[in-house]
């Protein structure tokens, strides 16, 4: 039926005058409107190429009289592109629009309101209002489903006007329409309105939620997504309600569309917070695994979204995919973003039973080509050693083998992780220090260098030539980065504490202290220099005790997100926020944040860590000034925000937590009863620490240095709103 088009020739830049002349010429004699069609195609091609065709407005509009659908659609496309910039001429087309709104053909009626609503200027919306009201009650479902989306457009152009016109109520009524597609679009439109900061609140009660569920089997796949997504607006009051709802939607996990699957999982994860039936929760967890794995057979883009989400899901529900680490082994030709995401999941799923397999894979990756991937593989070996004690010996051996390769970046990564392994297993692996010392010259990156220096200082007592090695490293002291300078300063002080009799150590510490306090520009370095100097001068014994005091051991417990932060982040499963592992309100201007809502059915642990929705916050590192109209209090807000976002002393954080738990009405009886059931691994007692919820990894405590440096993340926000406008 489709004969191949031949329209590529129209992709040529043309002049306004020529097109105008051609359009005029076509009016005289135009058999079957071929000429007009040709000119319009040229114009549309030019719009595509970015040429401004708006001066042709009156001429193009003339073509609307042509009874050819193809021409009508091209003119409408022109209007969508330029209508907004021609408020003084748009009245020319209003009669045509109105005529189409009353056409007998439902496709034409829908096309008319759809196009009108794309031109959000008062003249058009005025004309649209009445027709839209009719369209929302049109006998044809296609017109109604189009009208539903039109309301969202109208609302985004002028919220108050749309409210005054009673459109929100009409939309609400459409949720009970007999046609599933209409229902789904009404839900999509209401959700959009509800997500606006100035929009009406969109909540669902049990009865409506059930009605929506009934529409799912008859909805298109996209409609299913809109409906499933809206279930998060329903707050179950009873465990049974949440459980019943989960049972009804779980079949959607078998759908072929990955977005349906992920949205179903989002809804299930949400509902599980309100459930009590342990068996059902386990069953759901079991059911979620296979579809998630199947997503890894989709296109790489969907795989990527799936992997980033899996990483979150398995932290919250560790039984999911517990035995499936193999499916996350990297394929040689996976795109790099997939490999990096898989690596992270492999580490999360690693435990004593599968550590050997995982380690063998990581060793394989460490010899691949991509730098980032190799580095992350090497670091993962180190993290594996720290996480799984049984595998630590093998991991250390693997790292030593890698150091043998003498590939510089591999050696550097290995040194960085070995430092952490020393801290995790004190007194166990120090025997390998000589192997490390052989490679000091290969280290040229600050983090690796600083790690090696830390090792030299910390174990100066067992490294015979520690003084010589440190002395060598100090040659370039003044050129080093601050990270290395700080490490050198501390290491030389430790050396001196160990070997205070040795002249060399004395000489060295003196030299470094002098540099740090007199020559360095960095205030941190200077301060630390002064502090050490004074301590050593006043009481060297106490100084030694302080400098060499026992370090808190590194554990991997802190290496996962806060339960509360996770609960909150999982409300965004499948969305951009879940890819970046950031709450959307922290990186997208005007994005709606989400929080679990308290109800009698809410699981007690979830309640204890519940992070109430913060007011709109923007990233602390890149304050964005919001230009244009907004709530007036906005101007004062940034200051209060920055103070609350800034790292506060621990005592203060505790206070906050106490206040919070006191103010939460927690019925004690329920806490104890559900406690027992929740004591399984995925509901283990959460950290009550109310960490800075802007950064879910804030409790990592830097234990892994810049391990997360390659995390996908939004690029730094533009600093000035002006720049933003300039660009876009």
């Amino acid at each position, binding site marked *: 039926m*489709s*004969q*191949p*088009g031949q*329209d*590529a020739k129209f992709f040529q830049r043309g002049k306004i005058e020529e097109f105008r002349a051609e359009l005029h010429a076509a009016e005289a004699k135009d058999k079957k409107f071929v000429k007009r069609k040709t000119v319009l*195609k040229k114009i*549309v*091609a030019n719009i*595509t190429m*970015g040429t401004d065709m708006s001066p042709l407005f009156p001429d193009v509009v003339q073509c609307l009289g042509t*009874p*050819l659908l*193809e021409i009508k*659609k091209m003119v409408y496309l022109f209007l969508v592109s330029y209508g907004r910039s021609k408020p003084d001429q748009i009245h020319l087309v209003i009669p045509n629009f109105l005529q189409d709104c009353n056409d*007998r*053909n439902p*496709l*034409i009626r829908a096309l008319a309101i759809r196009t009108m609503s*794309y031109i*959000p200027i008062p003249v058009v919306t005025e004309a649209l209002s009445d027709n839209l009201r009719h369209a929302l009650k049109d006998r*044809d*479902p296609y*017109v109604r*489903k189009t009208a539903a*989306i039109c309301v969202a457009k109208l609302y985004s152009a002028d919220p108050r006007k749309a409210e005054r016109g009673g459109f929100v109520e009409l939309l609400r009524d459409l949720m009970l329409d007999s*046609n599933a*597609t209409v229902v789904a679009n009404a839900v999509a439109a209401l959700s*959009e309105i509800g*997500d606006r900061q100035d929009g009406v609140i969109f909540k669902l009660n049990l009865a409506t939620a059930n009605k929506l569920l009934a529409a799912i*089997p*008859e909805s*298109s796949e*996209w409609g299913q997504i*809109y409906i499933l997504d809206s279930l998060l607006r329903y707050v179950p009051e009873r465990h049974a309600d949440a459980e019943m709802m989960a049972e009804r939607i779980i*079949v959607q996990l*078998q759908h*072929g569309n*990955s*977005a349906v699957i992920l*949205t179903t999982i989002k809804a299930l994860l949400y509902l599980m917070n309100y459930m009590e039936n342990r068996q059902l929760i386990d069953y759901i967890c079991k059911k979620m695994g296979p579809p998630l794995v199947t997503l890894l057979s989709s*296109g790489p*883009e*969907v795989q*990527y*979204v799936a992997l980033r989400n899996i990483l979150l899901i398995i932290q919250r529900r560790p039984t999911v995919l517990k035995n499936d680490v193999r*499916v996350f082994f990297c*394929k040689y030709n996976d795109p790099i*973003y997939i490999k990096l995401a898989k690596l992270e999941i492999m580490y999360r799923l690693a435990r004593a039973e599968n550590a050997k397999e995982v380690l063998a894979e990581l060793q394989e990756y460490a*010899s691949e080509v991509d730098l980032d991937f190799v580095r992350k593989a090497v670091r993962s070996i180190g993290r594996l050693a720290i996480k799984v004690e049984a595998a630590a010996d093998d991991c250390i051996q693997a790292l030593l083998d890698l150091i043998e390769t*003498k590939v510089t970046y591999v050696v550097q990564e290995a040194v960085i992780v070995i430092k952490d392994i020393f801290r995790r297993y004190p007194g166990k692996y120090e025997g390998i220090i000589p192997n490390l010392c052989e490679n000091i010259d290969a280290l040229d990156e600050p983090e690796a260098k600083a790690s090696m220096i830390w090792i030299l200082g910390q174990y100066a007592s067992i490294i015979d030539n520690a003084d010589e090695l440190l002395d060598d490293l100090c040659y370039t002291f003044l050129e080093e980065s601050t990270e290395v300078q700080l490490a050198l300063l501390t290491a030389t002080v430790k050396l001196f504490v160990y070997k205070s009799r040795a002249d060399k150590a004395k000489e060295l510490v003196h030299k470094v202290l002098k540099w740090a306090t007199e020559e360095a520009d960095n205030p941190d370095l200077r301060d630390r220099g002064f502090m050490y100097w004074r301590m050593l001068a006043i009481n060297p014994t106490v100084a030694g005790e302080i400098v060499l005091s026992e370090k808190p051991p590194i554990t991997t417990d802190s290496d996962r997100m806060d339960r509360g932060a996770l609960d909150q982040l999982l409300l965004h499963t*499948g*969305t*951009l926020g879940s890819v970046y592992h950031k709450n*959307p309100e922290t990186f997208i*201007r005007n*994005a709606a944040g989400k929080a679990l809502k308290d109800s009698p059915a809410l699981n007690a642990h979830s309640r204890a860590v519940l992070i109430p929705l913060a007011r709109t916050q923007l990233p602390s590192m890149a304050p964005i000034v919001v230009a244009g109209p907004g709530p007036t209090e906005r101007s004062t807000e940034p200051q209060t925000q920055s103070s609350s976002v800034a790292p506060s002393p621990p005592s203060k954080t505790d206070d906050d937590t106490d206040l919070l738990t006191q103010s939460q009405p927690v019925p004690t009886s329920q806490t104890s009863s559900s406690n027992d059931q929740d004591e399984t691994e995925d509901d283990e007692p959460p950290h009550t620490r109310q960490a800075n919820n802007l950064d879910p990894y804030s409790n990592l405590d830097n234990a892994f240095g810049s391990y997360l440096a390659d995390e*996908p993340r939004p*690029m730094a*926000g533009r600093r000035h709103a002006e720049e933003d406008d300039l660009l876009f």
Partner: protein
Amino acid sequence: MISAFFIFNQKGEVLISRLYRTDFKRSIADVFRIQVVSNPDVRSPIITLGSTSFFHVRVNNLYVVAVTKTNANAALVFEFCYRFINICKSYFGKMDEEAIKNNFVVVYELVDEINDFGYPQNSEIDTLKTYITTESVVSAIQAPEVSSRITAQATGATSWRRNGDDVKYKKNEAFVDVVEVVNWMGSSKGTNLRADVDGHIQMRAYLSGTPECKFGLNDKLVIDRSTVGLSGPSSGLADRGGSDAVELDDCQFHQCVRLNDFDADRSISFIPPDGEFELMRYRATSNIKLPLRVIPTVTEIGTTKVSYDITLKTTFSPKLSATNIVVRIPTPLNTTDVDVGILGTGKAKYVPAENVIVWKIPRLQGGQECSLSAMAQLTSTTTRQVWARPPIDIDFQVLMFTASGLIVRFLKVFEKSNYHSIKWVRYLTKANGGYQVRF
């Protein structure tokens, strides 16, 4: 939701530009061109700058791009891009720069129809083709009744199929293609690190009216269930099926399949779209029959030579054969030349540009084997770089064989006119890019 939708060619020129919302101007396309098209090191299909996020999918040197300023559903955005690509392939036979440019007016119509204000709408190809056509349609002529039927279908419960009376075939036929992509990773020690099957069941349904189909596989769960039900001696079929039933890890279905039925008793029932569609996808990981075995022996002789001995064995019945076998054997980057010898069939040559020996075997019968031996000469390099040893990759096809053991047990078609229909089933197992062994 999606604010803007673009198609770029390889040079970064805009072929299609559609703004669904007023929060962007067309110039946002320039940002994408700079950030992605002209950037040689793009490491993510999603790029976020400030509050703006770009999602892109590459297809035949085109970029299909969606832009948003919201916390959009990332899976939905990519699925929408995939769907758009499929629609284009179905409409124009292919999806490349030429096809888009030659049909840009239709593409604009499609883009307007399948997405409204950033929300994907009905995108079932069969339905779209009833009202978005490449021929001109005169609006006055198209009767409102016809349109009503179209709209009813576009919004209806079976939006994927035209009205029953509109579909007529002289001969009612249905073709089922079971296509399994088998993935395998073998370790250098000869063990299986992973073996799994991604199965697709493609269907071409040329059936009149509104046919109600029931489809049955040798799904272990179904067979087990029926064996329990029919515990008498009459359950010969079930017993037979039980012994070689397959365990499916997961199944996903086309929109047309009734998921509630599947959930209740794992039955697959549906009203099919007219023509070609993917009925289901499945995944299997247990008892995978690997059709080809590869035994590599690769030894580095000092720093100047690498010797290869690769043996290939087929494990399936001699009645079948593997075709289009392509083995890609990596060589070190500093290889100067390779001497290749072959025992059995095929041709092999060293491809310096890709650092591989390519060994092609047009056909290898079941139960046979052939082998290749080669010696790569290396130049001496000053820096001793470790060779990454990428895995050996094998591509092939085996007709009438399924690596999972899956069999179509029946396809029943019920239609009110009670016509007779003919069904055809084909099986194909293939490997492309995911059948590898380390050495």
